């Protein structure tokens, strides 16, 4: 058993290279199904941030992104996508919750964690920065005040290349 397992890992690693955003079905706040492999931003960077209404640091993080979103967009063309991992217990409150906070970015519902699994997210918050080809350039788990500055630095590095 163990030998097969290790052998599998070795072989998997041999095929390692980058590809587009993994496919999973998520929902718009209107309930419409959207496949994540269709997320795009005309070759410009995308930030994907996993969060939940009951997760305090997640909300702090998205509040911080929202404060800078318009400036970042002007400078780097970035698109921020927030993926709510709330299940049907709390996914119903996401729309008014987002609206009351005045968040400017797109929010999608991942009620059964399909996209969360596809992106190998174990806990929220977990944020990814993807380049124009959908390759993961940078990622960060958890959030503390000031972490948005690291993301901004990475965004600048990416767009100034």
């Amino acid at each position, binding site marked *: 058993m163990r030998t*097969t*397992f290790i*052998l*599998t*890992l070795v*072989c*998997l*690693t*041999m*095929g*390692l*290279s*980058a*590809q587009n955003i*993994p*496919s999973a*079905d998520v929902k718009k706040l*209107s*309930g*419409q*199904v959207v496949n994540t492999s269709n997320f795009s931003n005309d070759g410009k960077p995308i930030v994907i941030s996993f969060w939940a*209404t*009951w*997760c*305090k640091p997640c909300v702090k993080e998205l509040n911080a992104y929202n404060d800078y979103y318009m400036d970042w967009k002007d400078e780097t063309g970035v698109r921020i996508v927030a993926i709510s991992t709330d*299940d*049907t*217990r*709390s996914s*119903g*409150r996401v*729309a*008014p*919750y987002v*609206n*009351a*906070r*005045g968040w400017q970015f797109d929010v999608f519902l991942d*009620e*059964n*964690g*399909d996209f969360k*699994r*596809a*992106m*190998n*997210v*174990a806990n929220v918050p*977990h944020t990814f920065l993807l380049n124009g080809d959908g390759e993961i350039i*940078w*990622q*960060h*788990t*958890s959030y*503390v*005040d*000031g*972490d948005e*500055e*690291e993301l901004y630095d990475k965004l600048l590095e990416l767009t100034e290349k």
Partner: protein
Amino acid sequence: MLSLIIILPMVAMAQKQDRPKGRLSGNFNMEAWYYLKDSVIGTNVPPEKTLMNGYANFRYDYGNFTAGMRFEGYLNTLQGFEKGYDGTGIPYRFLSYKNEELEFTVGNFYEQFGNGLVLRAWEDKNLGYDNAFEGIHVKYNPYKGVYFKGLYGKQRVFFDLGEGIVRGFDGEININQLFDTLKYAKTRFIIGGSIVSKYQKDENVQYNLPENVASFAGRFNFQHGMFSLKGEYAHKVNDPSADNGMIYKDGDALLVNSTWSKGSFGAMLSGKWVDNMSFRSDYQAVDKNLLINYLPAVTQNHTYALTAMYPYATQLTGEAGAQGEFYYRIKRKTALGGKYGTLITLNYSRVHDIERNREGLENDTLGYKDKFLAISDDLLYDDFNLKIERKFSRKLKGTFIGQYVSYNKQFIEGKGGIVYAKAGVLDLSYRIKRRHSIRLEQQLLMTEQDRGDWYSVMLEYTISPHWFFSIMDQYNYGNDHKDLRVHYYTLSMGYNKGGNRVQLNFGKQREGIVCVGGVCRQVPSAYGAYVTLTSTF
């Protein structure tokens, strides 16, 4: 299966450059405890001294193919999780193929139909919950706005599969996607329906059990501008089980949710009524095992430890609940709103038992009769809370919460009467300088019942983006038993870089309940040191 996973990347390497490239990704997670003895709070040191839960996911995407697996190891299972997990294995592995219209998966998979009232397979490692299917899963999207899903499978229980076979079908039509003329209409409409049936051979000598048990659900989602209304109704035929005391009565569930937002105002109202809707692929299963469906709680999931002291867990055999939530954002640069604006959230939820009439049915196989939507006077849970979030300056932010909760511990946990508690939170964070922040979180809970009053204080120092240090103390100063007025302290530090995170902790954990979604886990009191490691790649 495994040999297929091995072959795939080799095929990938043999391909020419213009073919899609393969991508390997995954994550790794472990938590290990070293337990110490504390006779006052009654902690147990297991004979192994140290216990560990760990797992790793590996996923390989190549064009339209995906293969994945998860190795899990519980050596032995951490306290607070079910001992059934003891051991190691690869309980999750799959291969799937997807093109524009069709997607199929063989192996293990998760799925949710509608709100989950008749089917939801999901996992949450923090809860020790995993009811994944093993079988065949198909998703078919023949025309824009039309979605079909079908599955056959057996469910996971620890490192085994349950006896029952589950068959399910779900269809959904998005009217606005289907008709081009309605594509940009302000009014949007989605309808859907599911059928789920389980088969389990009847080998019971005492009862004549139904071998096939079916359930049906219908749902709609209506939206007009910033107003939305959605609902789902589910029905299940006779399904005697350990949960319902082997009665043959049908089950029903109704779930309704409505939201409205305008400018700085937002509101949500939701309600639910459930009767005899526990649905498992083995009629003898209990706890969190082999559940086919999911009945979401209509109460708030609290973030702070003391406001979450008395969390509510869905009663599968029946309950009626409602929740209302209101948001108001006071505009920035006003006298009340301050320079950055202030957000006020008001939440109220209440859950009762349902009304059952057992008269003349004491020895009947139906168990009881009830009227649809009839509610009993027995209060199970009641929670009123007010939250204010405000940014005072570029450096100082604060959150204030006031809560009043009534918790029918007797009904939910089987002991302890009804607990009435008041709780308050004061959470302040201050940015000392670029990348350095400090956070002070104070909480108070007052109650005459259960373990009496608590005070909790936490101080956290963070250096973005890598470090965090915290010290926390939860003090049960109001416990009736003087020797149980204990300080539950924890020291933690963590380091983060990219997708990696290491956290070290030392201290005492209080006995309580951890809940995510509608599912809860009982956590025993514990004392010791523990480390958590997570990595995503």
